[in-house]
Every structure is written in C-alpha cells, then in structure tokens.
C-alpha cells in the first residue's frame, strides 16, 4: 500500500508526553488539511491511546511508547501506538465501556470507547507481558480549500 507521508517517533512513558504526542501528531496531520473537528477527534484518540500505555501498560514501570502516523491515499490517516508493557489479558473485556483497572486514578473506563467513537476503525492487539498495539484509521472528509 502506498504511503504518502509518514512519521515515527518514540517517547518515554511520562505523563507529560501525553501532550507531546498530541502536539506532534497534530502538526504532522495538518498537511492533510483536516477539519477542526477531525483534528480534535484524532488528537483525542491519540491522547487516550498514549494515556493507556502510561497508566496501564507501564503501570508500575517505565518504558517507551512508539508512535507511527501515516497519511495514506484517499485522505486516510493511519495511526499505530505501541507499548512493551504488561499487556491485556482480555482485550474484549478491556474494551467494554466503563471497564477500568485503575479506579484509584479516576480513570473513567472510556478510553477505548472514545477511540472507537472518534476514529473510523480501531484494532487492539495485546500479549500479556509483551505489550499492546493499538491501530486506528480515520478517513478525512473532502472539503473545499
């Protein structure tokens, strides 16, 4: 599959990097001319995925979060966010709205629901003690500019 443009970067799992990841992804995607709402949707989905890596994947440890963003033909945005943390034993359960394993941090259990709602496609692959990879796709609208 042809890729029009791509960025790959890695950040350590520090909570301050939630905004770093959003900022880098946003500034890269601007070249594809998304609407304000589409850009907000993507920023939010990225923030949720990166937060999951920090809060859940690397809960009691620290590691790297790898982020890949691609601009594909037909105005499709592809995003992959990967950690090498503890993994998810039951992905289906984790994707249920309001399910959380971190209530003490006031996690609402809505991270995957938000990613699903704000993006067109969401895939979660995980192996216990190996890590979790989230891939998301969103097709940008065609608008006059």
């Amino acid at each position, binding site marked *: 599959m042809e890729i029009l443009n791509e960025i790959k970067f890695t950040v350590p799992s520090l*909570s301050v990097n*939630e905004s770093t990841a959003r900022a880098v992804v946003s500034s890269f995607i601007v070249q594809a001319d998304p609407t304000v709402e589409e850009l*907000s949707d993507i*920023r939010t989905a990225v923030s949720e995925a990166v937060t999951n890596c920090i809060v859940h994947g690397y809960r009691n440890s620290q590691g790297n979060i790898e982020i890949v963003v691609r601009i594909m033909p037909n105005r499709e945005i592809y995003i992959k966010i990967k950690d090498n943390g503890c993994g998810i034993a039951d992905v289906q359960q984790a994707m249920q709205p309001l399910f959380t394993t971190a209530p003490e*941090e006031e996690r*609402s259990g*809505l991270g995957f*629901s938000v990613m699903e709602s704000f993006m067109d496609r969401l895939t979660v692959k995980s192996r216990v003690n190996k890590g979790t990879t989230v891939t998301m796709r969103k097709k940008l609208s065609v608008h006059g500019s």
Partner: protein
Amino acid sequence: MKINIKSENGTAIAVLNGEIDHHTAKMLRTELDKFVITMQPDVLAIDFSGITFMDSSGIGLIIGRYKLVKECGGQLEIRSPQPYIRRMMVLSGVERIVKII
C-alpha cells in the same frame, strides 16, 4: 494548565484554562479537592470556557468532583464548555448527572 477559584455567598466558581488530560487532571483534582474540603461550597461551578482540549481524563475528573461535592452537601455545575468538549460530556453520559450550563 491554570485554575483560579473565586467564592461568594456559598457559590464557588473555578475557572480553568488549558488542556485536560491524565497529566494535568492530577493537579486540578488536588486543587479542587483542597478547596471543596476546606470551604464546603453550596455550589461548585467549574467554568470550562478556557479549556481547549479534554480527553476522558476530564470525565473522571468531573465524576470524582461530583461525588466529593455531593458528599459535602453541595452541588456541582459545569459552565460554558466549548462544543467539542460538550460532545465528550454527552458521549460519556456525564451530562445526565451533572448540570451543564
């Protein structure tokens, strides 16, 4: 992320400015809880007009403050969220338990 809380006649207004995510929510939680426990306001109104980004960490923040304010005998209000932030509140269902003006 900035927070400014003013109180008058039992109503406290907390004006927030910046982005709410898991990182900044910790600071907001600490500041708001300290105020609520000390001042026990009848109404805590959180002004979201200056919030330019919020992910689901903001929903956890609102639900946590709703519980605390209620336990202290008060009411929580959310004021002036931008349309995009309101959409997140509606998606989460938080607007069914907290008054959004």
